[in-house]
């Protein structure tokens, strides 16, 4: 197991390097290959109708005129050893790990990521708990009452949940619960837990439910399908033949087997969300990683895009590792080697 984890960590680091090179290439190499000049790229980061001098200044400041290898080297070195950066009257030190500064608002990327992480964590974990509990419960009930009205109703709602975009469900829930009924605060009211736990909770209820709705729908369908399959397994018949109560058969025997594959999907989904729940964060104006990256992409803010990509990739790799290890723990047939 230890050797396995060590090997996976090394693979993960290599993976992150590849991701960073690929992201770098997408935002720097491809534009260049398509004939974009350093000045053309720099013109995005200066004011409108900027003078050639101002554009040249930006080219120099952002090092856009340097060969790509040098630019990437600077980026990589910054992560390991930090970097110096001019804010005008003086140089400032960007300590390692330095992912550089935003092209658009000059903020250092790493502290920004750390600043945005709690919001994304709050959103993702809260929603994950809701959708896991709700999705699995609904899926199990649906499977056990297969073909009944309850099952059909649940699956219709689940279909809606999978099909409706968060952009829509989010705004509708805000309109209804925040602005008409006034039960929950409106958009943009996210408050860090450390500042005001009550407000933190109230502001996150709608985003949690909205995000969880989508996933719960998915998980309900997965659980239902898995449960139906499991309930037809021979070992369930065996469990019943032993004289176990049906409740025990479902909770101890069927659920355990059904949940194992779902838990691995769950781990990956949560890992993915820690890299930012783009649509939910955008809809509810939550200052998380997802909101950060979508704005960065729209604004061609390369250092931020690069930073978030690596951050997200890290979580995905981590989630994969955790899931693999967990799977081995849960399913004795799997051995890590």
């Amino acid at each position, binding site marked *: 197991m230890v050797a396995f984890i060590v090997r996976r960590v090394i693979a993960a680091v290599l993976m992150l390097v590849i991701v960073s090179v690929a992201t770098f290439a997408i935002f720097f190499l491809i534009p260049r290959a398509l004939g974009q000049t350093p000045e053309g790229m720099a013109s995005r980061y200066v004011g409108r109708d900027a003078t050639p001098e101002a554009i040249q200044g930006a080219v120099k400041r952002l090092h856009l005129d340097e060969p790509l290898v040098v630019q990437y080297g600077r980026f990589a070195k910054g992560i390991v050893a930090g970097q110096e950066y001019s804010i005008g009257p003086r140089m400032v030190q960007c300590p390692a790990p330095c992912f550089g500064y935003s092209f658009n608002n000059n903020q250092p990327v790493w502290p920004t990521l750390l600043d945005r992480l709690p919001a994304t964590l709050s959103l993702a974990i809260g929603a994950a708990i809701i959708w896991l509990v709700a999705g699995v419960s609904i899926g199990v009930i649906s499977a056990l009452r297969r073909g009944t009205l309850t099952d059909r109703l649940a699956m219709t709602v689940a279909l809606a949940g999978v099909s409706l975009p968060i952009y829509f469900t989010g705004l509708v829930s805000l309109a209804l619960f925040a602005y008409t009924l006034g039960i929950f605060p409106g958009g943009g009211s996210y408050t860090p837990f450390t500042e005001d736990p009550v407000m933190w909770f109230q502001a996150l209820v709608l985003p949690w439910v909205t995000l969880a709705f989508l996933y719960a729908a998915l998980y309900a369908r997965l659980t239902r399908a898995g449960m139906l399959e499991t309930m037809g*397994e021979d*070992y369930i018949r065996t469990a019943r*033949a*032993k*004289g176990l*109560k049906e409740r025990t058969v479902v909770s101890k025997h069927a659920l355990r087997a059904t949940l194992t594959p779902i838990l691995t999907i769950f781990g990956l989904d949560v890992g993915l969300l820690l890299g930012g729940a783009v649509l939910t964060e955008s809809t509810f104006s939550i200052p998380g990683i997802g909101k950060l990256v979508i704005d960065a992409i729209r604004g061609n803010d390369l250092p931020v895009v690069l930073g978030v990509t690596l951050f997200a990739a890290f979580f995905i790799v981590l989630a994969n590792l955790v899931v693999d290890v967990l799977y081995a723990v849960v399913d004795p*047939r799997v051995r890590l080697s």
Partner: protein
Amino acid sequence: MTTPSASPAPGSFLELRDLRIHFPTEDGLVKSVDGLSFRLERGKTLGIVGESGSGKSVTSLGILGLHKGGRAKISGEIWLDGEELVGASPDHVRTLRGKKMAMIFQDPLSSMHPFYTVGQQIIEAYRIHHNVSKAVARKHAIDMLGRVGIPQPDKRVDSFPHEFSGGMRQRAMIAMALSCDPELLIADEPTTALDVTVQAQILDLMLDLQREFNSALIIITHDLGVVAELSDDILVMYGGKCIEYGAAEDIFYRPEHPYTWGLLGSMPRLDREPTERLMPIKGTPPSLINVPSGCAFNPRCPYRERTGGKATTEVPQLVESDGGHLVRCHMPREERRAIWENEIKPMMEGS
């Protein structure tokens, strides 16, 4: 065996009276078991033989009450040690399952939960019916594993099913079924997944254990060879019905139903080349929804022409041929016996 009447509890340990288990489906009513009756005493062994889909497994699950609460429509009576089970509450039947009656399933790999150790699964079975601590139950489990011939049971108790060989797994399955000293043991294809030497060991083990516990044993199989040595009585099922019933000797030496002849003819025998199957049964098992009119076996029966047209128009009755030997066939008894003596038996022995 006679047509059951609404009589009080029988003297037999297990008695089925006109058991019917039907499943409504979108395509129609599936009559998996359609009027089955038999008796079984303690210490005796009944072999139920038939092709897949003949209703033998449904019957065994029906006895255990595992169709209760589902979509199945069940009628008739199942008497176990003086108690009627068809009309009993599902929860009451559940308390009997595993304790009074237990089952050994085919393919122990899929029949045991992959995520729990063999020990955990035996312990669970034991503790359902015995209010004991886990430690006590574990000791019992180790004991049971030892009794079914698993070496180093104190270590193997913590192994998972996939860590066992096929034969060991079947032994573990038996240990689990026997953990509560059941009085009725049903073994559904207990050796099908095993190779021949292991088959023999397992069958011997089951017989030994049956004697030790003095339980009634039902062995369900498609293979007459398996039941030949074990069974006192044999019941041949076809299309949800019993088509021949009798003592093992009757079935093996004086079979009267063309289907039974087919089964015997398809039996692999060591004194015969494997390719020389004399009497393969042609065709496929009947649909249980659109059962062939008349005799269910008629489309596959080589002797249908000898029934005077009754084969397709009239359902034959199960009629006593000799003492306790029942046959469901339109052909007169003498003709059946003549065919067996003159046509079938010589062919089987002649080779």
